[in-house]
C-alpha cells in the first residue's frame, strides 16, 4: 500500500504540473493533429472505444500512404469518460491546447450538445458518426451518421408498405434521440392516415430489464385484429432483456415484427439470436454487405484489431467516410484551416462501403443508402432492402415548426433558415 500512497502523491503533484506544462509537444511543425473525442470509460465506452480504434486505424493507414499535405497525422486521444460536461471540457482542451485540425467524436446526442457551444465558439470542426434525431445543423459539425429521414422514415415506410403494419408500438429509452425520433414518426404516421389511438408509445429507463408487462401490452395491441409492429429506439443493453422477453413470450417476427434503430452487430453479440431470426434493423451499413470495399475494410479492421471475430458497424463506416472526405477536402484546400476545409468539404464524394457514392450536402449531412436487415441466427443481418442514396435532411418535413426550416452552409450560410420568411433564424445551434 505504501507504493500506492507514494503514487497518489506523485500523481497529485503531476496533476497540478501537467496542465501548466500542457502536453509534451513532439515536433509540432511536422504533424497535423486529429482529435479523437470518444469515451474510453464509463457506460458508453463499449460503443465508443471501437470508434477510437477505427480512427487510429484510419490515421495509421493514411500515414502509411504518406500522410497529408506532406505531414504525418497525429492522433490526440482523450477520454471524456461518458461524462457529458467532460466532453465540453475535453473539446476545449483539444482546440485550445492541442490545436487539433479536426475532431472525430461523440456518440450520444447529449454529448454532442455539450460540445456544440465550445466548437462554435472556437470555430472547430467535429465529425459526428452516429445516427441521430436531426433538428440541427451546425457550421462546425459534419454529420456522417443518419438523419431521421435516412433511417427512421424509410424503416417506417417498410413497415407500412412491405409488411402492411396498421398499428405501431414505438418503444424507446427515455432520452432525446428516441423522444425526437418518435415525435417525428408520430407526425409521419398520422400523415399516412394512422390514427393516434393506433400509436402506442412507451419510454423506459436506460438498462431497463423488466420487460414482461410491456411485451404483454404490445401483444395485447393486436386484440383488434390490426397488424402490430414495434419500432424500437431502445438503447444499449436494455435490448438484451427486451429481446429475451420477446423470445420467451413467443413473439416471432412473423406475428409481431420489431425494427430497431440502435441494434447492430455489436449489440447482438451479447445475445442468443436464434429466437430473434427475422426481426429487423435499419442502418446505412451492415457488415454482411457484399462489396469489395467492404471486404477490404473488414480485412483491414481485423488485421488492425488482431481479432477476426470483431464486427464492423454503421458508425465505423460513418467515420471511414468522414475521415476520407476530410483528407480529400484538406488536400483540395491545401490547408487545415477550418473555414477553407469546410468550403472544400461540401460537395465531396466518397464511395460507401455498401456501394454507391456518399456526397456531403450543403447542410453538412451525407447522402446515404438505407438498408434494412433481418437478424440471422449467427448474429449478422440479411440485407433485404437497400434504397438508392437518400440525402440527409437536417430539419424534418413532418413537424410543422421545422418543415419551414432548411440548412445550407454553401449559399445561404445558415444552419436554420426559414424558407417562408427568408431569414436566417440563428447562426449558432440550439443546445
Amino acid at each position, binding site marked *: *500500500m505504501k507504493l*500506492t500512497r507514494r503514487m*497518489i502523491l506523485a*500523481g*497529485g503533484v*503531476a*496533476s*497540478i504540473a*501537467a*496542465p*501548466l506544462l*500542457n*502536453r509534451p509537444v513532439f515536433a509540432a511543425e511536422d504533424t497535423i493533429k486529429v482529435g479523437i473525442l470518444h469515451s*474510453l*470509460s464509463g457506460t458508453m465506452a463499449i460503443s465508443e472505444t471501437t470508434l477510437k480504434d477505427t480512427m487510429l486505424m484510419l490515421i495509421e493507414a493514411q500515414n502509411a500512404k504518406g500522410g497529408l499535405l506532406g505531414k504525418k497525422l497525429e492522433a490526440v*486521444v*482523450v*477520454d471524456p*469518460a461518458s*461524462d*457529458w*460536461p467532460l466532453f*465540453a*471540457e*475535453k473539446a*476545449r*482542451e483539444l482546440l*485550445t*491546447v492541442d490545436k487539433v485540425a479536426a475532431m472525430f467524436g461523440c456518440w450520444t*446526442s*447529449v454529448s454532442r*450538445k*455539450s460540445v*456544440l*457551444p*465550445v466548437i462554435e*465558439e472556437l470555430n472547430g470542426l467535429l465529425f459526428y458518426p452516429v445516427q441521430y434525431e436531426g*433538428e440541427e445543423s451546425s457550421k462546425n459539425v459534419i454529420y456522417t451518421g443518419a438523419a431521421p429521414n435516412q433511417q427512421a422514415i424509410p424503416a417506417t415506410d417498410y413497415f407500412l408498405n412491405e409488411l402492411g403494419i396498421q398499428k405501431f408500438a414505438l418503444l424507446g429509452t*427515455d*432520452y*432525446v434521440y428516441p*423522444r*425526437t425520433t*418518435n*415525435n*417525428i414518426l408520430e407526425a409521419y404516421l398520422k400523415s399516412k392516415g394512422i390514427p393516434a389511438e393506433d400509436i402506442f408509445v412507451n*419510454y423506459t*429507463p436506460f438498462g431497463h430489464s423488466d420487460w414482461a408487462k410491456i411485451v404483454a401490452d404490445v401483444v395485447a395491441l393486436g386484440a383488434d385484429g390490426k397488424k402490430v409492429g414495434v419500432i424500437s429506439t431502445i438503447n444499449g443493453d436494455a435490448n438484451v432483456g427486451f429481446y429475451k422477453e420477446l423470445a420467451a413470450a413467443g413473439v416471432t417476427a412473423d406475428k409481431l415484427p420489431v425494427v430497431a434503430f440502435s441494434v447492430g452487430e455489436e449489440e447482438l453479440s451479447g445475445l442468443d439470436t436464434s429466437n430473434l431470426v427475422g426481426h429487423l434493423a435499419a442502418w446505412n451499413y451492415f457488415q454482411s454487405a457484399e462489396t469489395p470495399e467492404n471486404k477490404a475494410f473488414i480485412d483491414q479492421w481485423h488485421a488492425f484489431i488482431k481479432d477476426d471475430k470483431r464486427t464492423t458497424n454503421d458508425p465505423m463506416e460513418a467515420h471511414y467516410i468522414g475521415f476520407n472526405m476530410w483528407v480529400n477536402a484538406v488536400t483540395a484546400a491545401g490547408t487545415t484551416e477550418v473555414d477553407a476545409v469546410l468550403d472544400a468539404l461540401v460537395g465531396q464524394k466518397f464511395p460507401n462501403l455498401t456501394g454507391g457514392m456518399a456526397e456531403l450536402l450543403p447542410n453538412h449531412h451525407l447522402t446515404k443508402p438505407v438498408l434494412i436487415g433481418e437478424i440471422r441466427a449467427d448474429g449478422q443481418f440479411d440485407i433485404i432492402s437497400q434504397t438508392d442514396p437518400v440525402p440527409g435532411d437536417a430539419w424534418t418535413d413532418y413537424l410543422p*415548426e*421545422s418543415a419551414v426550416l432548411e440548412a445550407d452552409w454553401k449559399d445561404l450560410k445558415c444552419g436554420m433558415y*426559414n424558407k417562408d*420568411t427568408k*431569414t*436566417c*433564424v*440563428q447562426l*449558432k445551434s*440550439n*443546445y
Partner: protein
Amino acid sequence: MTETTQNPVTAPANILHPSGYLRRNPSVLWFLLGLAVLTLAVTLLSPAYGGGGISTSFVKTLGKTLCLCLAALAMDIVWGYTGILSLGHMAFFALGGYMIGQWLMYARTQEIVLQSLVAGPLPPTAEEIAQGVGSQIFGVVGGSDIPLIWGFAHSLPLQLALVVLVPGLLALIFGWLAFRSRVTGVYLSILTQAMTLALSLYLFQNDSGLRGNNGLSGLQNLPGLADVSQDFLSVWFFWASALMLALAYLLLSAVVSGKMGSVLRAIRDDEARVRFLGYPVEGYKLFVFVVTAILCGIAGALYYPQAGIINPAELAPIASIYLAVWVAIGGRGRLYGAVIGAAFVSLLSSWFTGGRAPSIPLGVYTIDWVDWWQVLLGLSFVAVTLWAPKGIGGVFDRFQGLHSPDRKGQPLGPDAGSLQESEAVE
C-alpha cells in the same frame, strides 16, 4: 462527554472576538491565505489577464473544483460534525445548477429568438416569442410548450432566489419528515440515497419539463455577454467561486467553533444523551441539513455555468457517495479536511481519467490508468477507512502534535474517524 463540561462552552460573545475566533480556528488564516494566493496565481497565469501559462479549460477545472470544495464543506458539517451520513447532498447541488440553468437557457434563447423575430416584417407578439423560445428549448426533446416550472425563468432575481429556496425547501421537507420519525444512522443514509435516486429518475423523464436526459446545456454562454470570451468568463467565475468558498469557510468555521458546533459534535457522538440534556436535537439536525443543502445549491449554481451542461446523471446516487468519499479522504470533522479531500481526489481523478497518467507496463499486462483508476480509488478508500480513518487530515494532526484522546479503552463515539472535541489538543 465529561471532558466537554470541563472545557466550558465558549460564550457567544467570544465568537465574534477576533483573537478568540482565530485562536480557535487557526486554519482560517492559512486557508484564506492559500485561497488568495491561488486566486492571484490563476488570474496572473490565465489567458485573459496574464501570461496564459494555463489554459482556459484548466481555469474552468480549478473553478469547478472550488465549487466542489464548497459542497464538500457542507457535507463535512452534516457528516463530520453532526454525524448524519447524507448520501443525497449532490441532489441539492444539482438542483442549484438546474435553477440557475433555467434562467441562463431561457434568457439566452429569448435573446436569439427576439433577434430573429425582429428581422421579420411585423413586430412579434408575446405569444410568438414564447412559442419561439419554447420550440428552441424543447424542440430538442420533441416539444414546444414551455412547462409551468419555467414560470420564473425569465427573471434572474427570481431564479437566484430559487437557487436557495428549492434545495432549502426540499431539505426542509425531507429532513423534517426523516428526523421527526427518528430515522437515523444507516437508515437515513439509505433514505437520502433513495431521495436523490428518485429525483434523478424524475428528472430523467421528459415529462418533468427540464429536458429529461438532455438536461440544460450551453450554460457557459451568459445572456447579454455573448461578446465576452470564455477566457474572461472563466476567470470571473473562478473569482466568484473563490469568494463564495471563502465566505462559506468563514461562516462555517464560526458556527462550528461556537456553542452550536459543540452541540453538533455532541449529537454526533451520543444523540440520545444530548436529547436528554434538553437540547432540541431534531431542530439542530434540521437546521444543519437545510443550511448545508442551501450551500450545496449555491455551489451547484456556480459550478454548472462553468461546466456548461447539467443533466440528471449529475444527481445519480454515486455522485453523493463520491462527496462522502472526498470528505472521508480529506479528514472529516475539520473544515480544511473537506476542502483538501475534494480538491485532491477530484483533480487526481480528472488527471487519471484524462489519459495523461503514464501507463505501467508489467510485461504481460499494461496497467492503463483509464481502466484501473476506479479500482485504485475504491481500494484506497477501503485502506483509508481501515487504517487511516482521519484521512489526509491525520497528517496535519501529526504536524500539530495532535492525537486522539485516550479514554482508557472507552469508545470515542460512533465516528472514530472524525476530529474529536478540542480536548484532542494536548
